[in-house]
């Protein structure tokens, strides 16, 4: 399975490494043409304002929406989760508007409030070490969205069909089980095509 990692800005190498550990092949994606060659796409952590601007500039908005419409899976972590959301709290303009959820940016506060913790995630047998960095939260979800984990009552992992999102950074640890989970989504989608 070839899994692309959107490489406009952010922690690209870490996702490529985790995908490799999970048994897939990670590829940095800088151009829309490359989407044709991959079975799934990860939108990494970084600064969502920067990634969103560059996505618009290089026509990634429509290209990724088309990619997702073909049933191919997309996984957003942290900034990537923000980019996937249909609505953002405050007056911010949403980006891909793919997942039926409302997201609050920097929901825990500033960097000094960033933290790591053990987190139970539906579909993964034992807790995952989750690193939250100036992390967003999912404040509301639509009926199609399956909540996979919560932290102190707030949603931090969610899935809607072929879309997966986490507030935290699974790519910053050596635990690649969430990447394996995503790789399985890509395999299922490929089998259906």
């Amino acid at each position, binding site marked *: 399975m070839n899994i692309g990692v959107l*490489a*406009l*800005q*952010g*922690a*690209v*190498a*870490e996702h490529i490494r985790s995908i490799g550990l999970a048994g897939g092949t990670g590829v940095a994606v*800088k151009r829309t043409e490359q989407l044709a060659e991959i079975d799934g796409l990860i939108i990494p*952590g*970084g*600064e969502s*304002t*920067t990634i969103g*601007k*560059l996505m618009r*500039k290089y026509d990634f908005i429509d290209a990724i929406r088309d990619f997702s419409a073909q049933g191919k899976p997309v996984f957003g972590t*942290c*900034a990537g989760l923000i980019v996937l959301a249909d609505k953002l709290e405050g007056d*911010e303009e949403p980006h891909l508007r793919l997942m039926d959820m409302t997201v609050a*940016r*920097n929901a825990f*506060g*500033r*960097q*000094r*409030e*960033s*933290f*790591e*913790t053990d987190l139970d995630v539906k579909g993964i047998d034992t807790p995952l070490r989750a*690193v*939250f*960095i*100036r992390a967003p939260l999912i404040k509301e979800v639509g009926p199609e969205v399956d909540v996979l984990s919560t932290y102190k009552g707030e949603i931090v992992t969610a899935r809607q069909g072929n879309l997966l999102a986490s507030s935290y*950074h699974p790519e*910053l*640890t050596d635990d690649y089980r969430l990447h394996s989970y995503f790789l399985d989504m890509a395999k299922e989608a490929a089998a259906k095509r």
Partner: protein
Amino acid sequence: METGTSRVKRGMAEMQKGGVIMDVMNAEQAKIAEAAGATAVMALERVPSDIRAAGGVARMADPTIVEEVMKVVSIPVMAKARIGHFVEAKVLESLGVDYIDESEVLTPADEVFHISKSEFTVPFVCGAKDLGEALRRVQEGASMLRTKGEPGTGNIVEAVRHMRLIMGQIRHVQNLSKDELYHEAKILGVPYDLLLGVHETGRLPVVNFAAGGIATPSDAALMMHLGSDGVFVGSGIFKSDNPEKFARAIVEATTHYEDYELIARVSKNLGTPMKGIEISKLDRHERMQDRGL
């Protein structure tokens, strides 16, 4: 639940990769930087070229400026403390800044000791001009590095020198045998364990950005080719003719540093970059890179 772990502090820098961190002096400039696609801003009272021109002692910025900038942008805000001035750093941490630059751009407060950065919850970035300085700063707790370059000159030559030297030293260390590593650690003045890590991984333990003299989109792309994880642009943006255009062009050139047609396109009609300074025209005491070894 743990805050301020090394993974959380270093991870924050990982999220800046491929990005441009811009020096700003007020809320208005911060908004311009964010709109242009900066991944973070550095809130300052004066940019390095103004510090150079003004002379005298350069200190931490007035907290009002830092708070004003924090209020208007949603991206991370960094601020500078003097080398060794742990009280300035504590003050910045209490304000809630997202990253502290223990910076040679300001007048050092301590000629021997750097801040013991591992004791802080807020992460630190520090400048380095060779592998020895880089690993000493990591040992003290820096979660991110940058080249020193020669700040406020608009002249890329020193940043290039520092990045080439660090990358060359990493390649050299990779090729040493285990027994040679002990000696190398002694020569460089660094802990053996950190050097062993470089030997095994072929990279620094934290993200390393370019800084100190970047003035054009091509400068930023050059530093990315030489192995930078991203770039800091200090005086280069708000001392240019058209800060908005310069900022946007540098962001694009950093992302697509291998796409020369794109760099050509974004470099058109930018206006005049900041006026630079030829390094040999600087007196020995005017060189900021020699501060804090």
